[in-house]
């Protein structure tokens, strides 16, 4: 079962809504929790044990931290002024140990299940290269779907309790629901406890307004996923698997369309997820904010997979940047290199860690590490040349607000994103470079004129036209969103005939133009595998 499946949309979600609404308010959270466990069981079977373990574990660590904090507060109340600092330091140490243990347990499970095979494979290769006769046997572990997402939620919970941003929750049921809420469990968004836990617990009634609003968002998401993304699947897969059979121009089209597919798939599923939450009156954090209007790569990552970027910012970048060694380094460097380049050194170290983790989070392969490093280098380069760019702009009287300048920045960023996604999807880094080489050295569109591109790829001209119209449609919606136009408000403000026409249009576009059924292979949500 996945979010764009009929099983979810026609059976699971409506049944859950119905039972949820029939229950008295104080029991509604239980309906959501049971539904979430059923959903998780359907996608991961007995591996459900991992998320149950994680839930018990963060419940325990949260309370452990809380008990230390309460003990400290009690002592602080009774302590003399001069001894308070020492008490704080002592208890901070205690808390740090607990936090470290909690984080290590969660990271440990993720590392063993997701990365041990990759690490041992590389160790074996290294030993073979330097002729050490040691070889580890590699065990492939079954991984519960969504582990990369809920592990980050678990870590954020313990860390937030440690920082006393939130109170540790004594209620195991509430915590379990925060961890497993079914719409978010496969692909996020990576929610913080403060984002959703209380809303989930509240058990608000499903209102007609929420239902309409949620369904409209779900409809938009299904169009993106089933009509556009899934339609592109065979074409994109063929180009990436057999790139050596195609001209550079066609490979470039494949790379662009892969990025389109990934965006439509992931953001489409997010629309379904957030729309599902909306029906229950739950406001989940947004994961996309028109990423293809970004003027720089850093900006792109504040608009694409926002909750992952925010996690790395809050739980890796800031703690590292504000750590004592890096603070000292910044102070020293500022004196020698000045206000811009001084702090850049320590922030670059933190940035390196963020992008290494970001790359690795996506999967255990060198191509993902390369993907992370690619973005690190781009952002670092942007930071380094920023003063120079400012000088050149000033000398040439180029205004940053100028729309031509902005458009050129957007085009440049988009091209850099395409290249990044090329390495993201390529089987190996070597394949990625070979594809890039083909694009630049053998750029032609011969396959289009001979029609070969249509024969080989499971997509005919009409499919390309549908994809084209779909992209234009999503682009227009994105422009409106960028201009802060409330599209839902506009739709709901229309007369009933227009409103219903819009609803019917969405439903029948999905039914008629959806890439499902006998001529298509079902495509699982692309981010569920991470």
């Amino acid at each position, binding site marked *: 079962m996945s979010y764009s499946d009929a099983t979810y949309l026609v059976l699971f979600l409506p049944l859950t809504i119905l039972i949820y609404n029939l229950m008295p308010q104080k029991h509604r959270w239980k309906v959501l929790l049971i539904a979430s466990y059923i959903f998780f069981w359907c996608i991961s079977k007995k591996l459900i044990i991992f998320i149950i373990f994680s839930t018990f574990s963060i419940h325990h660590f949260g309370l452990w931290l809380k008990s230390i904090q309460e003990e400290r507060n009690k002592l602080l109340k009774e302590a003399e002024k001069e001894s308070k600092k020492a008490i704080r330091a002592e208890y901070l140490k205690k808390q740090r140990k607990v936090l470290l243990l909690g984080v290590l347990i969660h990271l440990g499970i993720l590392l063993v299940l997701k990365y041990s095979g990759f690490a041992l494979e590389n160790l074996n290769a290294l030993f073979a290269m330097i002729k050490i006769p040691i070889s580890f046997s590699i065990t492939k572990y079954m991984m519960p779907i969504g582990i990369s997402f809920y592990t980050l939620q678990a870590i954020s919970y313990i860390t937030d309790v440690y920082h006393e941003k939130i109170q540790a929750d004594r209620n195991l049921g509430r915590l379990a629901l925060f961890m497993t809420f079914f719409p978010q469990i496969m692909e996020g968004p990576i929610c913080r406890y403060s984002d959703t836990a209380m809303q989930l617990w509240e058990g608000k009634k499903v209102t007609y307004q929420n239902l309409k609003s949620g369904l409209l968002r779900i409809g938009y998401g299904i169009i993106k996923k089933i009509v556009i993304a899934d339609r592109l699947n065979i074409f994109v897969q063929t180009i990436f698997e057999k790139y050596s059979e195609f001209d550079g121009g066609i490979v470039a089209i494949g790379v662009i369309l892969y990025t389109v597919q990934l965006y439509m798939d992931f953001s489409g599923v997010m629309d379904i997820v957030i729309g599902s939450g909306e029906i229950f009156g739950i406001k989940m954090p947004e994961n996309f904010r028109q990423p293809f209007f970004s003027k720089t790569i850093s900006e792109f990552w504040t608009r694409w997979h926002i909750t992952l970027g925010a996690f790395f910012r809050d739980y890796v970048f800031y703690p590292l940047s504000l750590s004592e060694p890096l603070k000292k380094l910044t102070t020293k460097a500022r004196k020698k290199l000045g206000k811009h380049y001084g702090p850049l050194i320590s922030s670059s170290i933190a940035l390196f860690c963020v992008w290494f983790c970001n790359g690795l989070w996506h999967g255990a392969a060198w191509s993902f590490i390369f993907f992370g490093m690619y973005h690190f280098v781009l952002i670092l380069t942007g930071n380094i040349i920023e003063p120079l760019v400012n000088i050149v702009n000033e000398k040439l009287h180029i205004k940053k607000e100028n729309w031509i300048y902005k458009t050129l920045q957007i085009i440049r960023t988009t091209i850099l994103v395409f290249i990044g996604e090329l390495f993201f999807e390529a089987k190996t880094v070597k394949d990625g470079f070979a594809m890039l080489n083909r694009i630049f050295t053998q750029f032609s569109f011969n396959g289009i004129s001979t029609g070969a591109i249509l024969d080989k790829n499971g997509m005919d001209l009409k499919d390309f036209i549908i994809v084209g119209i779909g992209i234009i449609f999503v682009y227009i919606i994105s422009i409106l969103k960028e201009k802060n136009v409330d599209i839902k408000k506009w739709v709901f403000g229309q007369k009933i005939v227009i409103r219903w026409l819009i609803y019917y249009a969405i439903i029948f576009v999905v*039914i008629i133009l959806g890439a499902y*059924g*006998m001529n298509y292979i079902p495509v699982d949500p692309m981010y569920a595998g991470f």
Partner: protein
Amino acid sequence: MKKIILKCTIFCTIFLIILIILSHIVVPKNNSKEAGMEDELANGILAEPENTIDVLVVGDSESYSSYVPREIWNEYGITSYVCGNPKQPLSRSLSFIYKTFKTQKPKIVMLETNTIYRRRSLMYPLYELSDNILPIFKYHDRWKTLTKNDLFGKVDYTTIQDSKGYYYSDIIKSSKPGKYMRRSKDERKIPKSNKLYIKIMKKYCEKNGAKLVFYSAPSSKNWTYEKHNGVQALADSLGIEFIDLNLKNNEININWNEDSRDKGDHLNYNGAIKVTKYLGKYLYEKNILTDHRGDPNYQEWN
């Protein structure tokens, strides 16, 4: 609240009407591939003259790769048709049985048992239902090839399949059977929903004067002794005859070096003929099927 319910009812009614209209437009007007028909080999049954098929075979790819209706006609004058399609689940087998009985009166229905172990999502029966009632979901992609005839024409199935549902292949890809059909006492569990389908199927066949028979085509890749035990137990409990050809190799002589088209997964023509000869003899010895070879109404079979 009443207003909301009324609005929802009107909305759903209009939705249903549009679905019915669209279904009428996209449904293939003939049972040929060119007209857009899915599984045109299996759906060739739709064009067979009324009450001319005596044996119906259903199942997944193992069925249409192992049973050659023409061979049985040539030997015994018995008419049969294979309504098998790739990965056919039991809900689809049942659907083909219903479809066939609308125009035919087969006396024997043979179910190839590989499909008994196929698991399908909870929604599959609903898909099946929607396929039959609202074909827009199955044939939605036909918007690409619609013609004027689709808008105004009537459904008329006229395309007869010469192979009567058998899928011909003379490719040889040998296999090494290895542990194939190594004796075991264990039983492979059959999904409960599939057991229910079998019961419905049996009841329906009996009600329509037909006998349901299980047969398992030789497949060194798909079949195991555990599966045999599972199906045998089910067959015994329901009083259904079960012919497991995987256990009868001394009689049919499948040679895995030359009788498979894909390394033991499916039989090729050579292998299918061996299986069909055995099944033909079995059907003939039932003494309930007529030899139609001299009958002018069956001219097309000659």
